[in-house]
């Protein structure tokens, strides 16, 4: 409806605009910072879900957990890796895998082994991006700005959000790395040579059943789209305002595309959770860790095990919506 009518209905009276009021309302980055905060919130949930999915894949693969042993992690304190290793160990607390004296392999493929440093780098970038957003959220981007204590009015360049733009670019790139290794883990779990499980995790191997084979296409498409969206937008925009404004960081679009990455990553995490849960079901039933057990229960609350072929797209959408609503995060925090 016309906003004039909406204001009247809401009983909001309009004051008169005085000097500077227009620029005082408009000269800020509230759209970029507001949508940035929403994107960061979702990114935190998705990265946590993806790390839990990775840990469930480690369980399903009977992986060698020595790369997350605190003693070897302490040899190099890479940003994010220490925390992610700790998170993975805590998710797997109580798991039979942690007690295994003779793991199935001396070394697993890097997509399994490097879960902590790769996802850790993304957690680290998430923290840095949050710091950049908070600086803007709690600051004033106005120009000119009133210096209340000095009773002065001065031009500023505090509307420039290059630091925020670069932080989100880095976050998007970091997330694209987590997407790549998740994609490889999913394919490995479906491959009998690696997992020792039926091909494409079909419980009844004989006949024309597809299992999760075709889901690989969805996974591959998601990873490709994420990698595409992670390409940097770059330093160039066409000059505007008759050349006075000859530079801009395109922060709102960078944030929007990072959010698009996050939404795709939520689907990828949902798929890995479902595939890893199926692999757990088909394997020798070992005791899962507390967190990986909760992740498994979260999957089975929303998605039944795949016995006969069915359309699985809706399963993944349902699970992605639940994890974006914070349901898995709440279960893991309980």
């Amino acid at each position: 409806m016309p906003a004039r009518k909406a204001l009247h209905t809401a009983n909001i009276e309009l004051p008169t605009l005085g000097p500077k009021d227009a620029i005082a309302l408009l000269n800020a980055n509230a759209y970029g910072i507001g949508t940035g905060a929403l994107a960061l919130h979702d990114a935190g949930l998705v990265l946590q879900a993806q790390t839990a999915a990775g840990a469930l894949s480690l369980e399903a693969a009977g992986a060698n957990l020595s790369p997350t042993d605190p003693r070897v992690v302490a040899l190099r304190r890479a940003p994010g890796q220490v925390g992610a290793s700790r998170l993975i160990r805590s998710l797997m607390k109580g798991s039979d895998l942690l007690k295994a004296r003779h793991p199935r392999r001396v070394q697993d493929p890097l997509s399994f082994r490097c879960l902590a440093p790769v996802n850790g780098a993304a957690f680290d970038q998430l923290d840095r991006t949050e710091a950049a957003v908070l600086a803007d959220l709690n600051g004033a981007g106005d120009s000119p700005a009133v210096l209340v204590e000095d009773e002065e009015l001065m031009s500023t360049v505090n509307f420039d959000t290059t630091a925020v733009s670069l932080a989100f670019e880095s976050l998007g790139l970091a997330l694209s790395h987590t997407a790549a290794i998740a994609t490889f883990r999913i394919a490995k779990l479906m491959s009998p040579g690696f997992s020792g499980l039926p091909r494409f995790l079909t419980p009844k191997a004989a006949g024309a059943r597809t299992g999760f084979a075709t889901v690989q296409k969805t996974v591959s498409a998601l990873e490709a789209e994420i990698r595409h969206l992670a390409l940097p937008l770059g330093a160039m925009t066409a000059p505007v305002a008759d050349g006075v404004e000859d530079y801009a960081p395109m922060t709102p679009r960078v944030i929007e595309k990072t959010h698009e990455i996050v939404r795709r990553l939520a689907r990828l995490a949902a798929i890995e959770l479902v595939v890893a849960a199926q692999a757990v079901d088909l394997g020798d039933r070992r005791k899962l860790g507390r967190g990986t057990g909760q992740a498994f229960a979260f999957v089975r609350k929303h998605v039944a095990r795949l016995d006969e072929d069915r359309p699985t797209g809706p399963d993944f959408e349902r699970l992605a919506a639940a994890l974006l609503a914070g349901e898995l995060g709440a279960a893991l925090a309980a």
Partner: protein
Amino acid sequence: MAVARAGAAVRIAPAVAPRLERARRIVEHFASGDRAVYGLNTGLGAAVDTALTQDEIAAFQRQAVMARAVGVGSFLATDEVRATLFVRLVGITRGASGLSPAFATVIRDMLDKGLHPRARRIGTLGEADLSPLAQLFLPLVGQGEA
């Protein structure tokens, strides 16, 4: 997040009002003076070289908001509208904007009463989000849809 997605109520702390009043008096002091201040008694962007007379300053505010409502493309989602309005309100409460204090209350009321103006996404470069903010504040100049 609570404000953007769960409709939480917004309160402006009591310490804010005196700060906004003080900042506003400083703006009004400069508005009646001779010194050129960007956007106060000059045009915006390339029009920084154009002086505004006292008579023009009032009409200029309305024009400046309307002329910046240049967004195209998809509409912002409701959580994006609320997050944007909330972040702008937080910024204003610092006092550096020098906005007429009554408008801070209007923005709070828009959030609390669920008055969500429509705004289209494309048209800002991230050197201040003039286009989305101008669209969201069109109601303040009697324009726009909500």
